[in-house]
């Protein structure tokens, strides 16, 4: 009754004096999350006076993020061993991310399953070196060229038990082939050796051959965007461009030293990068060959191979100095260098088609799998994880010019020999040689 009576009392009071009782209340929508999987709603006051020292706080965060990045930078994922001679060439599968083809110096070709990290197929493709491997755009077959003057086409499927490895097609050439590439979407491929030949898959003789006063080429590459254009590196220190539809080559640029390979940017039709013997890489606009648009320096020995990331933002280079370096496409210096104690001269390098991994084949018979971003977490990220990663990435970018952060971000443990190479030689007196910009220095002439 007590309850009842007190209740009655209150109601009476309200009735009598028209008293309004104000109660603190808030809308549950403001603080209750919709599902329990949501993060807790935290009301924030963004008044800047309540959150002072924003620059110094963010600087500390950036510094910590940079340090953590270095802590988590573990780029080396796996080593694929099995070859009995140096790995001379690599090829990505065009349709499957987990398949890799590698040809070695003893003519053996291996097909790898990258997820299992094991060899799924081995075949003796050629006598002597395998000079080039390339997978057809449909992914059902692949081509190899070797020192035995043959071009062979193989099916991608492993032969059944008891069946022998037989090439689908063999073409006997007159001279040794040193390079091979396939057209992006036509049944046409190109080889180089004493001259550059364009082949139709159905014919046993080239549909077109180009030669321009050179007797030896080291590499040939189709342009993946403007698919009828080709570029090749010749032994007379020149890079020659071709159009498959024309009867003559287009243009050539002669440099101070020989280029080993070139690679077209898959997102920018007229840009290509060549790996040069003079330790540098050069990015050219094919319309203006007079001087490169960027010189990429950091290697301390001849650069042997280069491959673009499929996003076209970066490229990776393999060098005789036993390192792999990753360059942003418009940066003069590398952002990353990978090396291990056991890795010898890196002969070939590829960037995987999902832009997450790098594959390198080297002299000491191993193929290595690396992460393209050393500190990146692989696999599926939760939403909050991704947000945090994005934020710390932006912080690093924002404070990248601050000396402490730059020092930590750029620091790499490298063998001492590298610093010697970098700064060891200075034979000329300063001022004795006229100053030339780095871009102009390396181009001898452009031949129309």
């Amino acid at each position, binding site marked *: 009754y007590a309850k009842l009576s007190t209740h009655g009392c209150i109601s009476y009071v309200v009735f009598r004096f028209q008293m309004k009782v104000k109660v603190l209340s808030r809308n549950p929508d403001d603080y209750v999350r919709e599902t329990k999987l949501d993060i807790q709603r935290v009301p924030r006051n963004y008044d800047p006076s309540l959150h002072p020292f924003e620059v110094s706080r963010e600087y500390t965060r950036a510094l910590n993020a940079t340090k953590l990045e270095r802590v988590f930078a573990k780029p080396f994922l796996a080593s694929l061993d099995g070859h009995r001679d140096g790995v001379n060439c690599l090829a990505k599968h065009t349709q499957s991310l987990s398949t890799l083809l590698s040809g070695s110096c003893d003519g053996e070709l291996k097909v790898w399953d990258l997820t299992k990290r094991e060899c799924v197929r081995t075949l003796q493709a050629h006598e002597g070196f395998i000079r080039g491997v390339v997978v057809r755009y449909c992914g059902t077959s692949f081509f190899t060229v070797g020192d035995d003057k043959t071009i062979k086409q193989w099916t991608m499927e492993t032969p059944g038990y008891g069946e022998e490895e037989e090439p689908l097609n063999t073409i006997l050439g007159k001279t040794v082939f040193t390079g091979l590439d396939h057209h992006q979407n036509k049944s046409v491929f190109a080889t180089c050796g004493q001259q550059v030949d364009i082949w139709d898959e159905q014919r046993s003789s080239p549909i077109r051959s180009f030669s321009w006063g050179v007797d030896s080429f080291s590499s040939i590459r189709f342009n993946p965007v403007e698919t009828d254009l080709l570029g090749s590196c010749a032994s007379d220190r020149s890079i020659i461009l071709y159009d498959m539809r024309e009867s003559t080559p287009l243009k050539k640029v002669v440099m101070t030293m020989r280029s080993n390979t070139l690679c077209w940017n*898959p997102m920018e039709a007229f840009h290509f990068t060549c790996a040069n013997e003079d330790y540098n890489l050069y990015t050219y606009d094919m319309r203006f060959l007079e001087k490169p648009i960027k010189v990429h320096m950091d290697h301390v020995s001849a650069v042997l191979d280069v491959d673009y990331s499929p996003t076209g933002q970066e490229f990776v280079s393999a060098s005789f100095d036993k390192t792999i370096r990753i360059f942003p496409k418009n940066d003069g210096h590398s952002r990353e260098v990978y090396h291990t104690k056991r890795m010898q001269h890196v002969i070939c390098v590829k960037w995987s088609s999902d832009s997450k991994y790098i594959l390198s084949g080297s002299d000491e018979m191993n193929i290595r799998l690396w992460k393209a971003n050393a500190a990146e977490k692989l696999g599926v990220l939760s939403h909050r994880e991704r947000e945090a990663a994005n934020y710390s990435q932006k912080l690093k970018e924002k404070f990248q010019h601050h000396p402490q952060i730059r020092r930590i971000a750029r620091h790499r443990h490298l063998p001492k020999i590298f610093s010697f190479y970098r700064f060891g030689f200075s034979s000329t007196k300063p001022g004795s040689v006229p100053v030339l910009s780095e871009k102009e220095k390396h181009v001898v002439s452009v031949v129309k």
Partner: protein
Amino acid sequence: MAKVSKIRKSKKRSKVAGSSSKKPPVVYDDEQEEDVCGAEEDVSSEEDDGEDERKRQKLLEAIGALGGKRKHALAERSEAAVHMSEFSMTADDEADLSDLIGTIEKTPAATAQTKKHLKNLQRSKNTVECPLSKQENERIQRDVAFQKAALEVSRWQSIITQNQRAEQLVFPLNQEPSGPKPIEQVVMGWEARTPLEKEIFSLLAANKQPILDAVLTPAEEASVKAMDLEQVKIRRAERQKARALQSYYEAKARRERKIKSKKYHKVQNKAKRKEFVKQFEELVKTDPAAALEELDKMERARMQERMSLKHQNSGKWAKSKAIMAKYDEGARKAMQQQLEVNKDLTQKLVTSLSKEEEEEEEGEGNTDMLPDFVNDAEFKQDSSNPWMRGRLSEDPTEMELKDTMDALLREFDSRRKQRQDQESDTSAVIVNDGDDGVEEDQVTEDKVAEISDEEEEGLSEFTRMYRGIGKSLEKDAGSKDGSAELEEGLMRIRSVDDVDLLPQETPTEPQQAPTPQHQKSAEQQPSRSRKRKKGIELREVLTKETKVIKVPLAPTVTDSEEKLDQRVLIEEAFAGDDVISDFAREKRKREDEGKPKVIDLTLPGWGEWGGLGLKPSKRKRRRFRIRTEVPPPRKDQHLPSVIISEKRNSAITPHQVSSLPFPFENPAQFESSIRTPLGRTWNTERTVKKMTKPRVVTQLGAIIEPMADEQLLKGKKKVSARRRSRNTKTRTQPAK
């Protein structure tokens, strides 16, 4: 003559040039040319021998032809020759342009126009330019090809610059739009692989069911074709309506099913049952046989329910509830509800056919069936239950409500009974019951209705009371205090004499020591009164005093004393240091440090005589006395409580940027870029998301294809759309 030789010479030169270049291009046209060259070379080597003689002969002929009509003498074959021309000319002969023209003039077939043209040619003295060398030719070809290729490649320029400026790039470029695909696409791309699928498809195909375009079967299509337009329209309308109705019905059912209120469903079920009963009764009238069948069915269902342990509070859930029932009101309630359900289901249907039987059976059935005490709440005339007796006839108000006539009658009766009571104390109640059985019946019916109206509270209260009283009765039959009182109460109500006594007795009750029984009866009374006058009576409430809640007052006085104590303590502890004056002194010191000073660098004895008591000359002193420069005014000169130090802090310097980094043009730009915070402490969620957007986004495990021509088209579309929108904007602006 001269022209021809010239041409020949140039050809020779080209030949030489060709042989000098190591590798001529292996193109078919060139080879042919070379063959021709070779042939001509052979000829020229032969003709060198008899050249002079031939010239002479020609000259003679020309002279001969000068006069009179021109006569063309056929050259006769004088010696055996390998080469025989079809124009009866030996290979040694050379055809001149003039000769050819001459023959044309003669032939009537040649048109005047060509004749004229040829004459003009003959008249012009200019020499034909010699063709370019092979290298030059190739060079030109290359140049042209390069220009073409460069132009072709340049069409990518716009998209490349666009991508370079883009805030975010998402790869792969040609991502399929997420979301469901149209069914045709999915089905077309799908193939039956497993045997089951194949079987299904073969069946579908055999029955002419649509496989790909699943709208109409061939039969339906045929029928649609067969009908005329009007019919089709009507049918379509019908179908539409049916579909709409069905969807409405479905939606309604879904909505109803979602309603969680038990009450709602109870009401709903009740209505349904009523409806059913009504229908059933109608059925009885119209078709008794069917009704009987229906009845049978129901009976069977009832039997099943009776047989099964469902709703008997014997399941797992019920057991768990039973454990909780001791503490939990809700659990008890749930159990009782279960039983009620049971009761509902096992109850026999009241129909006109079986009413009488039921009435007969009712008593037995009900008492047997219900297992729990709850079911005893079904009020029966249970003479063995004294409490029940008391309760049912207790209400004095109801008694008053009866007719006065009845009351009088009963008065007599009761008086008679009282007399009988005095004779036999114990059997009083029984006799009473026997007398006004009709009345009691009415009352019980009312009671049942009331109780069923009352919610759980009343019921549980009732059972509790019943239990308590039963116990007390069992406990001590000897202690007649309680039972006597109870009987007293009964007496009091029943007799009119006692009614008169009521007001006298009631005030005495609260004075008595409150025994449990008393309390219970006290509880009982208001509950009964509540029935009559629901709600709160103002008068009653107002007369009662409000409760005063005593809140313990905070000991503020003691607190302030404590605070004071603290202050005193602190003052005592820091009695010695005068912080303010210290600060002032320090500031003054700093200011003094910054003030210009006079440094005296004079060296006594330098260039003069030195020694004790000798002072350097005035000139010298003036010369070597250096006055430091006046520094700019201090920033804290007007701030008495602040010291601003403008010295460089060496602890921070390693963290500071020493020179302007590359893309920035002035320090202000760089500073502003640093000053804007990115984190969510300073920015709203959306802003943070926008600012921390990564530049390149790739999809896990997706192959990124190189840029294709479609991208070019897309880019163009985008650009054109942007332009169009800009144009429309500019157009609309003046209108405003």
